């Protein structure tokens, strides 16, 4: 291309930001990728072969995906209706839902995970309530269980499900549903043929956000389930911070990176396809 000939000075304003990020963020990521394919100074995929040959590592991958799927599913089940309510709400109700989404988003994850530690204890509010409702016979501890982890993680990530669905729904003309009803479509047809396709681009984006965040969460599992339950992210963090095993750490980091990039890129393609259809 002859791009340089017509390079105008205004486009150079992009250079500081791109140069900065390229140097202190892009290059390090490439180096990390490169390093993981080098063992003892020679190019090799040995660390990945070793990683994928170990049944423990497969259990870690299974843990990571299982928890991320559960978190995504629960977030979708409670987030979609909330997004619908937010799109239809007016005045104070809309403000209340928006505040309940934006305020917790602006509070750090350490604060929220710490509060869930208190809520999920044996003598915590959830346990007390379930005993009072006679669901449980005696107080139980949800902290350090997979259920407790899912509850805490959904709490942290569900705004990233609600907001993309809401941003799609608020542009939808509410008369579409009425039109379908006038033309004789029953509630089930209207749900599957009108409401679902219209929400779909938002759902794809929300699912991708929540899933990729749940795959790579670190603070929430550290505080809510502890060392005995390892995910790719906690294993990566621990092998750098405590085990001083950077070789293992960079291998798991690359696996995590590939997973997250695949989810983000895949979902962008999917949502563009659905978005183009509507």
């Amino acid at each position, binding site marked *: 291309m002859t791009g340089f000939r017509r390079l105008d000075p205004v486009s150079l304003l*992009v250079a500081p930001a791109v140069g*900065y990020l390229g140097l202190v963020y892009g290059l390090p990521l490439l180096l990390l990728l490169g390093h993981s394919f080098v063992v003892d100074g020679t190019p090799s995929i040995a660390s990945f072969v070793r990683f994928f040959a170990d049944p423990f590592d497969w259990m870690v991958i299974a843990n990571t995906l299982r928890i991320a799927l559960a978190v995504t599913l629960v977030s979708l089940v409670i987030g979609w209706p909330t997004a619908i309510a937010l799109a239809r*709400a007016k005045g104070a109700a809309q403000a209340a839902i928006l505040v309940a989404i934006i305020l917790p988003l602006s509070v750090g994850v350490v604060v929220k995970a710490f509060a869930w530690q208190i809520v999920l204890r044996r003598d915590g509010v959830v346990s007390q309530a379930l005993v009072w409702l006679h669901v449980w016979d005696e107080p139980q501890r949800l902290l350090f269980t997979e259920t407790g982890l899912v509850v805490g993680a959904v709490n942290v990530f569900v705004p990233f499900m609600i907001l993309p669905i*809401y941003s799609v729904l608020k542009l939808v003309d509410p008369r579409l549903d009425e039109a379908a009803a006038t033309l004789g479509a029953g509630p089930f047809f209207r749900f599957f043929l009108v409401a679902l396709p219209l929400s779909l681009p938002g759902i794809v984006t929300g699912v991708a956000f929540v899933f990729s965040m749940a795959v790579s969460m670190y603070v929430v599992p550290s505080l809510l389930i502890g060392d005995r339950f390892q995910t790719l992210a906690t294993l990566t963090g621990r092998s750098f911070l405590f085990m001083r095993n950077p070789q293992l750490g960079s291998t798991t980091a690359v696996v995590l990176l590939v997973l*997250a990039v695949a989810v983000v890129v895949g979902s962008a393609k999917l949502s563009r396809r659905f978005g183009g259809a509507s």
Partner: protein
Amino acid sequence: MTTTERIARILVWCTAGATVLFLMTPLFVAVAVSFGSSAVFTLPAPSWSLRWYEALGRSRELWSVVGTSVQIAFLSTLIALVLGTLAAIGLLRGEFRARESIVTFLVSPLMLPGLVVGIAMLEAYRAAGLTNVWTSLLVAHVVITLPYVVRTVYASLALFDFTLIDAARTLGLSYPRAVAKVLVPSLAPAFVTSGMFAFLASMDNYPISIFFTDAWTKTLPIQMLQMVEESPDPTIAAVSTLLILLAAAVLVIGDRMVGLRRMADL
């Protein structure tokens, strides 16, 4: 309205109400514990007290950590505002073939696992000989704050009519004065909201900061997680309550500047 629709509507509103309560739960709990007298987080609290705030006021260690966090968050936000605004102007006014790819690259730190980004940066900075904790924290935190600025300022600048600047110059203003009088005021809401969110993101960041802190220089989330794991007491809840207040203040200012609905645009 048929029965099915009525049931569906009730289900939607009940779920939304429950979700609102669920989202606010951790914030209520942190605030309630911070004003309780119990040292072991008993809820409902046996009696109310301000002792954890007094303990917080006395803790020298905590305040020096808060100082570091605020410095890093403030400076990294400032640098991000400059770099991000220049980039947004360049992207929209310059001639580019790969405009979308550049925007994606500039906001990509938001989408990648923080832990992996942190590890990559740690290894590279060490190899480059950058060992000063404070400096490497600042360098790393600009990576966290820049995406917020680029995203919001770029979106807001895309709606700006640049012929207004030409109009101002025709009316006799110099170029810099035209920019200051016309462009800056119309971008002010974008600066304020993106700056606030960037500041909070830096203040709250854990997965990148953890790789750059040591025993002497720490940021607030690192110190708090360490306290939760080693010696949990409601002083942490008192700090949390102050952070919740900060977030609430940001929310109120953001609502005044751009409105809650526009703040919800991801």
